[in-house]
């Protein structure tokens, strides 16, 4: 109704709600400031702090190394973006192979199982060595020899296995009644997966997926072992010349800045999904 206006009681209640919110806000702020102050004081008052500050947090070296690392980080970003697309695609394919039931697809199923088992067992850095040094050494015709290319392939191979398992967990967490009701509507198993189960499963695994992608962003640094001039390589290079670790901290700063927007985007997406689907539902 348009002519409704809140009663005195409701106005008071709103005030109380506001006070409660304000109080929580104050507690949160006070606690945060306190904790960070104490931690900061403990660290900076330790006996070795001046030396640590000089080797890791020297502003002079930070400034000097910044431009080179800035240039190099684009290589990491490029590698990450390319790898991410291929990882998502191959991971969902592997996951679908693993949950398939058709007898015709048995070989695919076995391949998918063996692939995830084997690849997940190999340290990523070993894969980078194997592919980036081994593949060019084979001297096959028509394949690129660049370290960048093979390091990216190594990341795709390794992360597809992890991400596939995340997808599979999501798919299998969808309640059997969803399968039943989709199949009762006459949907085939493939259609059920495509339209009902996978969309729900994928939503559920957005947070662990994000985890893997943050991890992937950092692992682009492994390309340095394939002699790709990416951020960590450049930072280490600078550090070795100047006997100072500050550039590595600068590189770490870049990686953090890269991951934060991704994390916020995912938080926002999941919150929106929940609001839409679960508003008041019980």
């Amino acid at each position, binding site marked *: 109704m348009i002519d*409704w206006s809140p009663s005195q009681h409701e106005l008071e209640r709103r005030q109380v709600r506001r006070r409660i919110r304000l109080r929580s806000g104050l507690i949160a702020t006070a606690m945060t400031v306190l904790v960070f102050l104490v931690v900061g004081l403990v660290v900076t008052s330790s006996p070795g702090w001046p030396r640590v500050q000089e080797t890791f947090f020297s502003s002079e070296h930070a400034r000097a190394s910044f431009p080179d690392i800035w240039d190099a980080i684009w290589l990491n970003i490029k590698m990450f973006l390319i790898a991410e697309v291929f990882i998502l695609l191959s991971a969902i394919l592997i996951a679908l192979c693993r949950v398939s039931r058709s007898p015709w697809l048995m070989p695919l199923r076995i391949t998918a199982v063996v692939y995830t088992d084997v690849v997940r067992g190999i340290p990523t850095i070993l894969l980078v060595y194997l592919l980036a040094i081994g593949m060019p050494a084979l001297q096959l015709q028509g394949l690129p020899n660049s370290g960048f290319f093979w390091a990216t392939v190594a990341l795709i191979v390794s992360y597809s296995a992890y991400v596939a398992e995340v997808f599979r967990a999501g798919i299998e967490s969808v309640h059997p009644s969803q399968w039943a009701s989709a199949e009762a509507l006459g949907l085939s198993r493939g259609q059920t997966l495509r339209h009902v189960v996978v969309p729900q499963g994928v939503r559920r695994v957005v947070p662990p997926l994000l985890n893997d992608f943050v991890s992937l962003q950092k692992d682009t640094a492994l390309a340095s072992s394939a002699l790709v001039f990416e951020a960590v390589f450049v930072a280490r290079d600078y550090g070795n010349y100047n006997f100072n670790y500050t550039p590595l901290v600068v590189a770490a700063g870049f990686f953090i800045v890269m991951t934060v927007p991704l994390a916020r985007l995912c938080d926002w997406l999941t919150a929106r999904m929940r609001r839409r689907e679960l508003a008041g539902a019980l």
Partner: protein
Amino acid sequence: MSLLSVSGLRKCYGDKVVLDDVSLSVEQHDVICLIGSSGSGKSTLLRCLNLLEDIDDGVIEFEGREISDPRVDARDVRKRIGMVFQAYNLFPHLTVLENCTLAPHRVHGVRRAEAEDRARELLERFGLADQATKHPDRLSGGQQQRAALVRAMCTHPTLLLLDEITAALDPELVGEVLEIVRAEAERGMTMVLATHEMAFARDVATRVCFLDQGRILEQGPPEEIFTHPREERTRHFLRRVLPGQAGSSA
């Protein structure tokens, strides 16, 4: 003093007013049936009573204390109000017995053995003795709904809120579940329940409330509402749900 009293309750979702100036009082041992067409706000009212929703105006008092005050600890209130949902909402990862002992043990601090005894006794009474160790998904709909009732009653609530607990059941099971509700009503349990089972409402209710577009349009003893409804809308609704029966105005 009423056990529960609601006055001027208002609830909106965005711009949509779902409950408007609802007033209701529930005495000890009352069985209040909320009837009304789909979307009239029955579930929302029950959810407000259990503080699952923040209300937009009005007062809810329970045992003489205003529970709609934001400073009230909702958990305290819910310890004494049991609720059963339209969709059961049993925890699928726990057995029926574990579903029933979770709150008594964790919230009310009852020792596990004692909680299990109480749960088994109720399960027995509800004809579920042999389902105790099964997981909910392996029970039939009626069994799940009865298990949900047992779960709500294991904590000895002073007030029980039931939301269309028979909506998903076939007529035979409906009878089975309603029989249990009736028995509880006769034992003196205070209940507020939303239902589409008019015969049942007529039979067990001490008072019937007809909700229409978020308002309680009419309330009174079942004989009165079902045989001499005052409002035209109530008559219309009853003609629809009880063909050839009520609506014959006095």
